[in-house]
């Protein structure tokens, strides 16, 4: 029995490695077609990501919201839910945080407290938006994919409206966002760097909590049951709708925190695309690790590195920085594909 387990694990890793190679090959072909020298591109991505301490700093800054989003998504995926609406949930988190800060800024509360309230508000914002998706699904029979997609658009529209309307900068609103907050409302960073250790710790704690939840608690196991066979779970006495709603709310909470860190630790204001696509990137990470929390953190780090590494591609090589997206996307596709192939071959 154990023998079989380990051998199937090794074959699993073999297939994963093959998938990575295929994804690299595919991306290389895309580069060749677009007339770039692949070696040069890869080299650029690597130096772009690891070339200097600032770059590593940037990676960790990008890692933080990605960790939070992935952690939340692991919960919704486990419950069998496609929380496409995560982008909107991050955005709403950012909006609520900005709102809280704007309201409290003129008061003479201590800045630390204001920042704390900002996080709380962000979490609430994300939960609010995720809760809507959940309620629409459970009571309105609206599939979470459509509900989430719709609410993503609403969230974007809301951001734009706020930036150009009620919250516009003195004078004229601009795409660069709202008026930046004063320095004392910024989350403290390491001297000379952009990274806020507090935010990063939050991301790591989030993924750790999710790992423990899914691994060793009744809550996690029930969530799994709901995701894999809702009908049977219901008959076993698990309140399935409550669990689905909880998955949405917890995911919203983490997404909201991701939005809050974007405001408090990165941009210090509300900007039009504040979620920076970390929600969708988180979905890719979650799919790539096959919904296993243990692998989520390193894979998220790798994806963050790819994102940062490709930033300078347009400047140096006149290539679009979306090349990293091609690599990330093809990784997910090939891993899923190889997983299917493996299952076909070893089907018993």
């Amino acid at each position, binding site marked *: 029995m154990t023998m079989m387990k380990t051998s199937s694990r090794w074959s699993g890793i073999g297939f994963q490695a093959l998938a990575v190679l295929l994804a690299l090959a595919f991306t290389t072909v895309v580069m060749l077609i677009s007339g770039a020298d692949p070696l040069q591109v890869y080299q650029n991505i690597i130096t772009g990501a690891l070339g200097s301490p600032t770059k590593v700093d940037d990676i960790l800054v990008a890692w933080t919201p990605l960790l939070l989003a992935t952690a939340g998504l692991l919960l919704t995926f486990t419950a069998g839910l496609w929380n496409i609406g995560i982008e909107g949930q991050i955005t709403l988190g950012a909006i609520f945080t900005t709102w809280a800060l704007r309201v409290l800024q003129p008061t003479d509360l201590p800045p630390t407290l204001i920042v704390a309230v900002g996080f709380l508000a962000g979490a609430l914002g994300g939960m609010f938006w995720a809760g809507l998706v959940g309620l629409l699904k459970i009571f309105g029979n609206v599939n979470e994919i459509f509900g989430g997609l719709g609410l993503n658009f609403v969230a974007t529209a809301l951001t734009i409206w706020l930036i150009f309307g009620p919250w516009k900068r003195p004078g004229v609103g601009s795409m660069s966002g709202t008026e930046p907050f004063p320095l004392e409302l910024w989350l403290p960073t390491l001297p000379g760097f952009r990274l806020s250790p507090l935010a990063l710790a939050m991301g790591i704690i989030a993924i750790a909590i999710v790992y423990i939840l899914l691994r060793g608690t009744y809550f996690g196991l029930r969530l799994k049951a709901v995701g894999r066979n809702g009908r049977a779970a219901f008959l076993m*006495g698990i309140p399935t709708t409550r669990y689905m709603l909880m998955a949405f709310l917890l995911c919203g909470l983490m997404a909201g925190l991701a939005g809050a860190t974007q405001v408090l630790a990165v941009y210090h204001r509300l900007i039009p695309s504040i979620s920076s696509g970390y929600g969708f990137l988180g979905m890719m990470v979650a799919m790539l690790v096959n919904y296993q929390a243990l692998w989520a953190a390193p894979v998220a780090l790798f994806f963050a590195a790819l994102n940062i590494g490709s930033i300078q591609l347009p400047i140096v090589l006149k290539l679009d920085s979306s090349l990293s997206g091609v690599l990330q996307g093809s990784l997910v596709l090939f891993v899923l594909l190889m997983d299917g192939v493996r299952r076909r071959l070893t089907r018993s």
Partner: protein
Amino acid sequence: MKVELIHIHKHFGAVHANNDINLTVESGKIQGILGENGAGKSTLMKILSGYIQADSGEIRLDGTPVKISSPSDAIRMGIGMLHQDPLDFPPMRVVDNLLIGQDGGLFPNRREVVRAFNELQSQFGFSIDPYAYVDTLTVGERQQLEILRLLWLGARVLILDEPTTGISASQKEKLFETLRKLAAQGMSVIFVSHKLEDVEFLCDRIAVFRKGELVGEVDPPYVTDELVKLMFGRVISLEEKRRYETCDVSFHLDHVTIEDYRLQIRDINLTVSCGEVIGLAGMEGSGQVQFLRTCAGLIRPVAGEINLGGRRLTGKPYRAFLEAGIAYVPASRMEEGLIPGLSLTEHFILAEEQNGFFINFDKALATTRQRIEDFNIKGTPVSTVESLSGGNQQRALLAMLRQPVNLLLLEHPTRGLDIESAIWIWGKLKERCKQGTSIIFTSADLEEILQYSDRILVFYGGKVSPPLDAESTTVEQLGQLIGGKGF
């Protein structure tokens, strides 16, 4: 078509599910396959029909060695299989179901298909509405549809895995008639079952499996005891019927009326005492399932009162029924009972009362080992439920029931179990009755109903008979009532 299986081996981890199986099925014959739960019957059939591959061995069709590596390969070579657990049917119409899997271009001619379908089904005396939705058909009708579909796709070898569980007596008769007709037309039929009388009645030859091996082949005339001995390695007999004293009143239905889109059952009155067993008889789809689900709190009656030991449950949600100690075990194991992908241990954890926030895995593992032993489940704590054989899935489902239960509602509790296991499961159930649990169960097997019930309710077209005393009822009387005589 002549089918030869030669030196077939199949391992699942440490389990040798098929150990050097040699079996020849001549064309035009009905071959019976008999064996206890987990004997490896389904495994061999899945190998023949391309769902899984043998580790070694050869398959010959009409003398030619073939390699069958997928179900579509199998059907192309003329081998069609009806599964033990009917695969999920999507909510689509019968015609569309037929059109799938047939390459008829982008725009199939529906009207032509319907005509051909009706012609085909009239040969066998089936009457399925081609425009009906598949999920509204009874298990028996789905089975007929599946047979027609396989014939439609050109099957010349038909494999049926436990086809008589869950269908009515008349549907069974029709099925047997159909199989005989098909055999007479030169088809080979392989019929897998636990039911001795079915196999004896229908099959031209019987192969008996035990623990992965083919332990013997028998030709008619059959001697039942001999078959039983081959199956289990010893002779077993039905347990003497025993009655348990009933205690104070427990479960009440008072003028209950149930309605759904198919039928209405009016004015049911029933009092079930502690420890009493009530059997529900009737043709499939006569309202037994609706009745059970009403007792479970899954269907809300449109009128009447339900209470348990004086506690009013009318209109309460399913959870309230559960908390009152009413447990429901559905017939569709993989759809409603078990959770694919989760292990036995995880199932037992889910079934237990939550104890703290974190799961104590050591304790859970110990409980699981105990249950596996108690219920004689062939599997390990880490086996996923879909890796268990049909009968072992049923055992797992019954092993998951919480300890003190006031009322047990069972849909086909021994479906898919061999006789020995069925007797043994009923032993377990009767033990619970002694502790005061009442049982209401459905079964397609009249013998089972008469054997284990104290009282019987017969359902016919939405009507319910008054409770009959099982002691003084005969199979014939029951059969007549089920057919609607006397209502």
